[in-house]
């Protein structure tokens, strides 16, 4: 795509709002979204979505909601009735990018992106993960008990186990290094007032936790949370109207690797590498380690953080584990990673993971992160993955 990427029109994040980030919330999910939207619009200088917003992007995946056509239930609570609106079934960052592209194509000036999770309502998350597999070549490896209609034959986290196994084998990373990621992110979460799972663990706690699918332990996997994030974006000319601290979108990229798990590169995060390259190119970044100050990357499984950091060329292949062990990625380290606590510390928000990462980056860049504020925050990176068993990811780079 030589020479095709260009952010001719600068875009700023002018408002962020969130709600939930709890293992369980009593509100209906639309009430949760309304709450986050109120905060985001207030944050954007008290805009009125009925007047000031040109378009809305929703992010949802049907069966995480238990609704077919989740988009039906989208317009009311964000103020999108009779307004241009579109929905993507992708990660939150892809929704964010869709909104950027609508602004850059010239039809919208101000856009709102919303993503949420109400995973506590899904009583059969694991059945659903199996339901995402190819029905011909992969899914029949599991049997469904005709009486209980429950699938049996191994936890679907075995796909994370396979990926972790290959990643460790290819790079020589150790399970202790993966455990260190868990320890770090849970500790960071202790400093984050809206993180659901702050905790003081040790590497031994992680390594000695129950084996789900060797080499993956129970504590290597992030726990779930309900929550919603709403982001308000605006083109350069209007952004200043809404806020004194616009956070600029410097670059973005998204990529999908393959629809065949058999062909997936299990040791590497190829989709992250390509989305990262796209975003760096757009942002004019040659040396990410030096030019980006901190990152919120996908850590729904501990090894993913390391794998993604390497794919993003922040660390060399096989080096991320070592640097995590040396505390380089701690909040006060040279390159803080997931200072907010990440998905491990804040809870896995599924479709909303990407926007949660963006929220974390925006707070840092505005110096509003309080106890988990990193010392140098000029340029930050957010990256997310759609979770097992997918091979899709997205990256965005934000700066002051």
């Amino acid at each position, binding site marked *: 795509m030589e020479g095709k990427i260009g952010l001719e029109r600068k875009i700023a994040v002018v408002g962020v709002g969130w709600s939930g980030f709890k293992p369980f919330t009593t509100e209906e999910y639309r009430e949760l979204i*309304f709450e986050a939207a109120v905060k985001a619009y207030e944050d954007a200088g008290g805009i009125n979505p009925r007047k000031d917003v040109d378009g809305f992007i929703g992010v949802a995946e049907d*069966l995480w909601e238990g609704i077919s056509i989740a988009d039906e239930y989208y317009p009311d609570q964000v103020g999108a009735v009779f307004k241009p609106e579109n929905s993507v079934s992708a990660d939150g960052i892809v929704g964010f990018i869709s909104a950027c592209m609508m602004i850059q194509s010239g039809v919208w000036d101000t856009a709102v992106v919303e993503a949420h999770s109400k995973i506590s*309502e899904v009583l059969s998350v694991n059945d659903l993960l199996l339901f995402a597999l190819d029905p011909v070549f992969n899914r029949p490896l599991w049997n*469904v008990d005709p009486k209980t209609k429950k699938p049996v034959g191994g936890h679907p986290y075995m796909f994370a186990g396979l990926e972790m196994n290959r990643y460790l084998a290819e790079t020589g990373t150790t399970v202790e290094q993966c455990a260190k990621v868990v320890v770090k992110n849970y500790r960071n979460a202790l400093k984050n007032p809206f993180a659901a799972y702050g905790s003081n663990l040790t590497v031994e706690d992680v390594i000695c936790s129950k084996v789900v699918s060797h080499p993956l332990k129970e504590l290597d996997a992030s726990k779930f949370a309900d929550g919603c994030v709403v982001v308000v974006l605006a083109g350069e000319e209007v952004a200043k109207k809404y806020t004194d601290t616009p956070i600029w979108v410097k670059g973005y990229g998204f990529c999908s690797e393959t629809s065949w798990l058999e062909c997936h590169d299990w040791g590497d995060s190829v989709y992250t590498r390509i989305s990262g390259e796209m975003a760096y190119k757009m942002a004019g970044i040659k040396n990410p380690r030096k030019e980006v100050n901190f990152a919120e990357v996908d850590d729904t499984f501990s090894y993913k953080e390391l794998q993604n950091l390497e794919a993003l060329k922040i660390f060399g292949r096989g080096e991320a584990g070592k640097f995590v062990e040396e505390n380089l990625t701690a909040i006060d380290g040279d390159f803080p990673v997931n200072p907010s606590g990440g998905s491990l510390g804040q809870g896995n928000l599924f479709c909303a993971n990407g926007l949660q990462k963006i929220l974390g980056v925006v707070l840092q860049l505005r110096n509003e992160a309080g106890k988990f504020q990193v010392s140098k925050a000029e340029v930050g990176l957010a990256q997310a993955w759609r979770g097992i068993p997918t091979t899709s990811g997205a990256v965005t780079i934000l700066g002051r």
Partner: protein
Amino acid sequence: MSVKISKYPGVGLKEEDIKGKKVLTTVWPCNLKYSWSAGVAVGRFLTELKNGKIIGRVCKKCGRILIPPRMYCEWCWKPTDEWVYVKDTGTINTYAITHLATDGVTRLKEPMPIAVIQLDVPAKLPRFFAGFLHYLGEVKPEDVKFGMKVKAVWKPPEERIGSITDIKYFKPV
């Protein structure tokens, strides 16, 4: 179709080909379980249905009463302000007579009238009203008319569980 394209791909099958196992298939009985939060608005709505009452939310700005209730007014985009009980009577805004069951193939033995009930609540904005979908009862399908006055027939209190089906149906008055 373009005149430039002569052949369109695809192998059409008949149901017998699949049932008669002429082609290979895999099966998956999905049985996904959910427990959805009713939340603040609908939670209260269900509780009141159990009490034999219909409750709505008022938006003081546009003056509408929202039923089913919600905690936000989508039109003014602000939180709704208070709870209000309304009568269980209304008129038929539109109706239909269904011959099909939920699964889309089973035919009902007796055709059943259904309707959007416009509850007796003052309408403040044109084209918006308070009401919901429900069954009609104690009326022959051919006798149902637009604008017909109807009233809710409730299940006996001990059978109510806090569900939309605590109302058995609406009947003409």
